[in-house]
């Protein structure tokens, strides 16, 4: 009896010594701007052992005040600094701006200009998605998948450099069309490049998407159901990976996209694997779109509408959106009749997808963090504008 009591005493004392409170178990990590796995973005997470229980994103490290700067420049002077949020997808972010300004100032774009705009937009989509895929590879430690997309991306950048004159920040789209026409022999080069790239895409599928380690790290991880995707208002490839076939090019065709026949690529599972597969399928479909565009393009014509030096329109407002690499990119422009806009608001896909980050991270393991975070197709510079 005495022995039992003593035993209980010891156990009770031992438990009191090592008793840990709820507060002691949580550890706060700051996945900050200087981190190999975060980019120019910081989020604070609290981990309980191996599970994440709290996540708070902290953007703003690249907030340069784009919207305020737009109010001090003309409609055309806004193009160079508005394409800097995503410099490697710069055609799409200025495409939507040009569409909105054309509606405000009532400018008609010639047909060949519309085709060239769409062609540059598709080429840029490939360039962006390949960079995203490369960084995804290196986040998961697959350095071959960093080298291969970056190498193939250089070939597309060569095409864009022949077309526009610059590697990444093209300043090619302006309200009224594009700046210059295609050079000689561009179409053959483009078709050859697209044929080569389709062969390479088959190799990507082999080495990356059928890799058992990659599949284990991304299948079943960070599942976003269809209802949650609609409720959170995500966009782009994140939305299409959760089973909703929505693409702005089909829902609300702008320019000549109503004459192009393509299928929306979507998957139903909603996990990280689907979110990494949908941009890959988009790239495959983009190759077909490029071929069709080159086929249907009018052989000659103007590419730019003749404008006054300071185009302006009557007071009004306009909201236009375009499907970029990250999702629907919308511009809300208010004009008050002067050549400078009164208010420009960008609604970017990255900012909307950021809402899914705490939602998906809470409850998942710490080791799954890079594969969830980068699969949300989040580019920090664009979200901060």
């Amino acid at each position, binding site marked *: 009896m005495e022995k039992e009591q003593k035993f209980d005493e010891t156990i009770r004392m031992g438990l009191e010594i090592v008793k840990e409170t709820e507060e002691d178990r949580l550890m706060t990590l700051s996945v900050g701007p200087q981190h190999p796995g975060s980019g120019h973005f910081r989020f604070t997470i609290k981990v309980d052992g191996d599970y994440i229980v709290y996540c708070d994103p902290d953007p*703003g490290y690249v907030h340069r005040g784009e919207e*305020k700067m737009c109010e001090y420049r003309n409609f055309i002077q806004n193009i160079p600094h508005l394409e800097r949020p995503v410099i490697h997808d710069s055609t799409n972010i200025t495409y939507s701006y040009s569409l909105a300004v054309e509606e405000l100032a009532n400018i008609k774009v010639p047909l060949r200009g519309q085709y060239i705009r769409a062609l540059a937009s598709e080429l840029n989509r490939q360039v962006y998605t390949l960079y995203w895929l490369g960084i995804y590879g290196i986040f998961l430690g697959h350095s071959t998948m960093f080298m291969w997309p970056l190498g193939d991306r250089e070939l597309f950048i060569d095409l864009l450099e022949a077309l526009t004159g610059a590697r990444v920040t093209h300043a090619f789209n302006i309200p009224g069309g594009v700046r210059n026409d295609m050079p000689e022999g561009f179409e053959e080069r483009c078709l050859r490049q697209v044929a080569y790239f389709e062969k390479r895409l088959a190799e990507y599928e082999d080495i990356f998407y059928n890799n058992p380690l990659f599949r284990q790290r991304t299948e079943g991880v960070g599942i976003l159901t269809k209802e949650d995707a*609609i409720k*959170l208002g995500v966009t782009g490839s994140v939305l299409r990976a959760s089973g909703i076939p*929505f693409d702005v090019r089909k*829902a609300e*065709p702008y320019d000549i996209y*109503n004459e192009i026949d393509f299928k929306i690529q979507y998957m139903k599972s909603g996990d990280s694997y689907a979110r990494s597969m949908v941009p890959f399928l988009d790239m495959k479909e983009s190759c077909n779109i490029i071929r069709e565009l080159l086929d249907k393009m009018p052989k000659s014509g103007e590419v730019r509408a003749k404008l006054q030096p300071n185009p302006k329109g009557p007071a009004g407002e306009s909201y236009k959106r375009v499907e970029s690499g990250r999702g629907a990119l919308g511009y809300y422009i208010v004009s*008050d009749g002067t050549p400078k806009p009164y208010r420009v608001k960008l609604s970017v896909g990255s900012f909307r997808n950021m809402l899914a980050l705490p939602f998906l991270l809470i409850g998942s393991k710490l080791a799954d963090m890079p594969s969830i975070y980068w699969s949300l197709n989040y580019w920090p510079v664009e979200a901060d504008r």
Partner: protein
Amino acid sequence: MDSDQSKTQNNSEQKKSSSDSTQTSISKKTESVTPEFEGSLINQIVTRFSDKLVQVIYVRPGRTKILVPPNEIVQVASFIKDRLGFDHAESVSGTDYPNDNQIEVIYHLSSYSDDKLSSQILALTTRVDRNESRMPTLINIFKSAEYHERETFEMLGVYFEGHPRNERFLLPEDWADIPPLRKEFRIKGR
């Protein structure tokens, strides 16, 4: 597609018909053809809530805009979500009108689940006073507006009652100036 051509036609007609009106006046739809589907959407809202509460600003192909007072916005938003089928907010932003002494907060709403509404964007707007800018939040109805409302708070100073975090988001931690998107905030040198 027809809507594209009719959109440009409609726009040119509206631009010709409306005079040099500033944002405060309602543009009159005199000669242009009101699109039917969008008109029917707006009619449902106007018949449910009276004409005094809901002001229709414009009805264009694909884009519509209504103006409601700040204390009624929650009811109108829940009607739009439950009956009409708009399910998420594409963007939430604010525009500063110092001439009217008001700030206009505008919610662009769209739909993923309904096919006919997927190309429609309904702009639900309200005007709050510039000095006493408070309005109820809509995140209980449209959860996708959460971060956008927080950004509108820090950029324009509009306080959303009921929002869990009316805090600074994108600006640096030691920001001690007025909200930057207000018109009296001049950037350096201009």
